[in-house]
């Protein structure tokens, strides 16, 4: 092994980190490489490459003045091939519906006509404030670049606050603001429209550590444009997602197929 061959890489990395530190210190703009470096650290903690993930999700949709609905579902996720399978367990009216994602393709299975329909990843999930993209692995580093940075206190957490701008057209929101704690975990993010309108806020108060990764076990999504004024106070529509029985146990390949969804939906 020749240690000299690593010297150029080490120098490049040191220069990059120095430049990055200077940028943070003096508020310079971030280069694409710097953005990728920071955001990939964030992505890596909540992406489960090389292992399968499963969990039971409860989605509570709170619509002020209209009522609350609850959806229970089982999620199977394989980040290495950007796939997931979701089977709806509750409510009874939606029981048996399934979502299958394979790369860029996403289908919704309806057990009544027994038909798969192609849907958009940007669509709302079960008419809640969550979107279909929210259940796939985190790809901040691929989709966004950092265009601004500050620091701030978010409850008990000291956070770095990054302003992000989309670099691909595959994302729902072209602008974001994220709050990252000292453990590099996203604690909050705000989604903005292209014109800068604040559309959605997501808070992740609880993570659970599983092997070397983190699983967000409570997510609160607040719609900034939907809601009702009740008793003189504006109440936003909210969606609370709780995750239980999170596991990294291997999942058979056939779970990520249409045949599986059809079978379990019977």
């Amino acid at each position, binding site marked *: 092994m020749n240690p000299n061959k690593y010297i150029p890489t080490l120098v490049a990395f040191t220069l990059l980190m120095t430049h990055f530190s200077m940028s943070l210190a003096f508020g310079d703009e971030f280069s694409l490489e710097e953005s990728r470096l920071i955001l990939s650290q964030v992505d890596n903690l909540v992406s489960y490459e090389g292992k399968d993930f499963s969990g039971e999700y409860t989605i509570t949709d709170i619509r002020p003045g209209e009522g609350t609905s609850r959806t229970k579902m089982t999620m199977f996720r394989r980040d290495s091939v950007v796939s997931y399978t979701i089977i709806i367990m509750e409510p009874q009216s939606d029981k048996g519906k399934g979502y299958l994602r394979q790369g860029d393709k996403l289908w919704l299975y309806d057990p009544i006509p027994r038909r798969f329909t192609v849907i958009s990843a*940007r669509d709302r999930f079960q008419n809640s404030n969550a979107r279909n993209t929210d259940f796939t692995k985190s790809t901040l580093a691929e989709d966004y670049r950092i265009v601004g940075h500050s620091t701030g206190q978010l409850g008990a957490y000291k956070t770095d606050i990054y302003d992000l701008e989309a670099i691909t057209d595959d*994302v729902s929101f072209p602008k974001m603001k994220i709050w990252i704690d000292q453990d590099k975990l996203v604690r909050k993010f705000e989604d903005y*429209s292209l*014109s800068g309108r604040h559309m959605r806020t997501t808070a992740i108060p609880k993570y659970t550590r599983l092997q070397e990764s983190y699983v967000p076990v409570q997510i609160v999504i607040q719609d900034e444009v939907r809601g009702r004024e009740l008793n003189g106070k504006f109440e936003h529509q909210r969606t609370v997602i709780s995750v239980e029985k999170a596991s990294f146990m291997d999942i058979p390949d056939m779970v990520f197929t249409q045949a599986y969804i059809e079978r379990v939906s019977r």
Partner: protein
Amino acid sequence: MTALISTALRNFFRNIKRYRVLLMALVLITAVLTIVLAVVLGMRTALYEKASRYFAGNIVVMAYNGNGASRIEKPEEVLQSIRQLDPLGVAVRCFSRRSTYYDLNNIELFFSGYYVKQRRIVGVEWDLESPVLSKFDFIEGSVPDAGDEEAVLISSATANQLHIAVGDKLLVSILSDLGHINTADLIVRGIFSESSFFGYQTYIHRYTLNRLREAPVERVNEMGVYLVNPISDEERVAELLTREMGKFLPVFVIMKSREQYTAQASKLRDEREYGVVSISAQLKEIEDLMGAITLIASVVILMFLGIVVVGVSNTFTMIVWERSREVGTLRALGMQRPRVIFSFLIEALFLGMSGVSLGMLLGIGVLEIVRSAVSFPPNVVSTLFFTQARLPWVLPVWGVFLISGLVAGASILGSLQASLRAGRLSPAEALRRGK
């Protein structure tokens, strides 16, 4: 001839008591005819007005290259072609230059926490289409000023769902052409009542819509021509405009049905080609419905006219019988048979024309009273066929002539047999019968 007419006129007034019942029947028939024809034409005109506003004009120019979406890349050439219509004798009301956005899932309007989805949002130039947009059934507000890029016009159904009023700030959200969620805060300048048939579309400035779409601000998707006489001119103008555009641009055949329209939109082409579609092609189903209504109305009218013919025939048979002595005297004094026949026919014509005149006055009076006094509640029929919740009616000159011809014709036809019989009477027989 003048003597014959004056004799017939004198006889008509002399026998007016005999004609009274028949005259009343003719007046009523004419009034019904007038009302039916004027309302059917009025509803058709109102429908064309609404449809043309929805589709960008009575004749709309599209340009396709095969991806299904229309984009006018050479609006100046299209405009030049439209301007050629005037010297060709076409009465053009105004023209449109629109950007259109259609999306089943991604057009959302928000106000104060309330939200509603729309299928279509249209970018217009307020000043260009003002003559047409001002005919909206505005519940509140009006057409925005020419350069008002913050303005939005919404339907009353949308306003009710959003609990929004004129002057409030509306948030419009769409998915841009590049796939980004984009929003704009716009001010509601007008709320109009519109039929659900046209899908409650929202109108904003063309530049604003293009900015929301992340498209070049000057982009035009379709251009339209609003005609002064759409029903009669449409077909001719479609041909003229296609011919004029053909001088500058590659054109395809006139789209005469929705099937042709869909086929042309998806047909693959080497370069973008231009074509026109008319409102009647877009409104095939409604045209069929209107055709059915017109057919039923025509059958009813023909039945009425049949009754008129029988009534006039019976009355004239009686009149000729009662006036046999008078006919005999005139014949004895040397009046020829044809003059006797014409004398009765002219009397029947006077009867018919009197019925037409009074009946039209009655019909128009009833229509005008209903139009000005009755405001119909919004429903499927009233929003689609009525104007500003009022019964629309139109009675063109040809309609007046048609009704006059039908009623006077029925009157003459009814009197024909009795008149011929009067003409066949010999003076001796007539004088004997009259004793």
